[in-house]
């Protein structure tokens, strides 16, 4: 292939690797992708790594240690376009559960030798530390949306990633509303689409892993969640599970927890 292919790098911070796996999970699209870009750095796929600069960096994971901060600055400096992928990178992830608690206490409860743990008291999104060109939501990200972002980057256009509610996807897919028809608690009305209504399609309520939709009215959802049997402390937990650092969900959790 020509040397002029854009160079792609995939980085991991504090995360479970699920979003990088989503890229590997692209299967039949992976070889065409490799034709279009030079996969210069992707440890999950190959230990054969190339030096920067990179045209497109996909960043998984949150900032949870001091080294993370130094590393993300260096990656930003080496990347023409930087896209964060997944709930950890865009909203702190599950590990941001510690943000509203006493970190030292948690560390002493969880680890046998807490003094070995050199971590920050908070887990924060990448965008709190360096400028980010695009944030792709989800825990993990959706395969189609990930390919759309990379494809849009290659074509030099804006990715088509709607910021409306999950309800759009249920209705478009013909999934019967689990809240209205079954009384199942669901965060779909305040959560951003992108998953293809995965959980409701299996009769489960949405648990908000794509984070808040644009301009969500979480206050209006609260009485409904209560009516469907969710205790206030559980509402707070729901909002804090994957996207605790997303401001709209953080506020909703605090309001429910009061």
């Amino acid at each position, binding site marked *: 292939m020509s040397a002029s292919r854009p160079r792609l790098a995939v980085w991991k911070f504090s995360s479970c690797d699920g979003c990088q796996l989503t890229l590997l999970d692209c299967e039949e699209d992976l070889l065409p992708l490799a034709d279009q870009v030079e996969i210069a750095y992707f440890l999950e796929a190959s230990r054969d790594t190339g030096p920067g600069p990179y045209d497109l960096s996909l960043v998984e994971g949150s900032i949870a240690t001091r080294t993370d901060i130094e590393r993300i600055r260096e990656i930003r400096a080496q990347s023409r376009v930087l896209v964060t992928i997944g709930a950890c990178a865009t909203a702190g992830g599950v590990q941001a559960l510690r943000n509203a608690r006493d970190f030292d206490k948690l560390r002493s409860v969880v680890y046998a030798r807490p003094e070995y743990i050199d971590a920050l008291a908070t887990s924060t999104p990448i965008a709190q530390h360096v400028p980010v060109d695009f944030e792709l939501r989800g825990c993990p990200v959706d395969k189609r949306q990930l390919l759309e972002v990379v494809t849009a980057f290659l074509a030099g256009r804006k990715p088509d990633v709607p910021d409306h509610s999950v309800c759009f996807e249920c*209705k478009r897919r*013909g999934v019967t509303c689990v809240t209205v028809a079954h009384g199942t608690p669901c965060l779909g009305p305040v959560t951003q689409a992108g998953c293809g209504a995965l959980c409701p399609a299996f009769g489960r309520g949405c648990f908000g892993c794509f984070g808040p939709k644009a301009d969500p009215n979480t206050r209006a959802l609260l009485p409904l969640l209560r009516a469907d049997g969710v205790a206030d402390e559980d509402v707070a937990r729901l909002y804090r599970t994957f996207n605790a650092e997303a401001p709209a969900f953080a506020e909703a959790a605090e309001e429910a927890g009061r």
Partner: protein
Amino acid sequence: MAPDTGAPQSAPAADARPRELAQEDLQALFDVLTTRGWTVVGPTERDGAVVLAQLDSAAELPYGVGVALAPGGYRLRRRQDRAAFAHSAGPQSWKTFLHPERARMWQADRDEEGAVTFTPETEETAPTPRYALFGVHPCDLAAIARQDRVLVGGAFRDPVYAPRREAAFVVAVACGEPGELCFCASVGTGPGLREDAPCDLAVHEIADRDGVRLLISAHSPRGAEVLADPALPLHEPHPELGERARCQTEAAEQRMGRELEAEGLRDVLAETLDSPVWDEVASRCLTCGNCTLVCPTCFCTTTEDTTDLTGDHAERWRRWDSCFDLDFSYVHGGSVRTSGKSRYRQWLTHKLGTWHDQFGSSGCVGCGRCIVWCPVGIDLTVEAARLRGEAGASEEGPS
């Protein structure tokens, strides 16, 4: 009817007499429609709801399934009888089939020299499905007519809707069991089927102590052809059946769970744009978009351009959109309707008000879906009445 829709003609002079079909012979009607090239879509029970889906046999109809409706609540209930069409306000409408949620408009390919070829959709790339819409209630029949007006009745003929609509065979069923949130009677779309109802077959389903029987009449030449098929075991209706059908419709008219005072609503909405009612509704509205997506007349779409990884193949698709989507009113620099208030107001004033100016009628057919499927149960009839009160109050206010 608009001549270019291919929508059925009004009742043919020849043999419009109603005939009787036993419920257990519904499969014969399915077979006749299937043999003539239609794919039958209709109601069936799935996931705790009566949904609309492709039906392989009449056995899949929701016999004896009724519904209990509340604002933001939908539950199935078992009926005493085996009526198959005695349910209302399901989670989908027929626009799923006539105005699909996603459709490709064209494709473009770039060759090695850089020349670009555009390929619009044709019968070859996207063959028009021929649906028999089986069990369309009068409110939904009116909704199809309103979408006809919007999508083929103006200067522009919608290339996706029009051929699907022309191909569709419509089996309408008079409503004998309106739901707790239905108000077709007050907006003049049901519950009965008028003699000139724009369908191919008009059906009354009569469930009483003698079982379930269907009274069928043809409303179009196509419908008459289907009824004339010797494979259909039709017979002379029981002498009382027509009267029972009439009584059932009259009784249904008295059992509407909701009422919308339609008179003058257009002006009411135009006068109350700054009413505090909108702020109060907005405090409860999730702006999730469900009301517009379940509405059988809402037709708005957005455009989606896709490219493949090589960048040499592009496609333009359109998909359902909603005035509740911030992106829907996005113009250079941002969205025009940023607040939930402005978005809810847009939906209601268009549906009940400016639709009249644009298309010569209201956009609401009284099906009640927007009330049922709003997760927080915002009730269009209640909000419209509150606004009417506001308009009245401002007229009577101090001068």
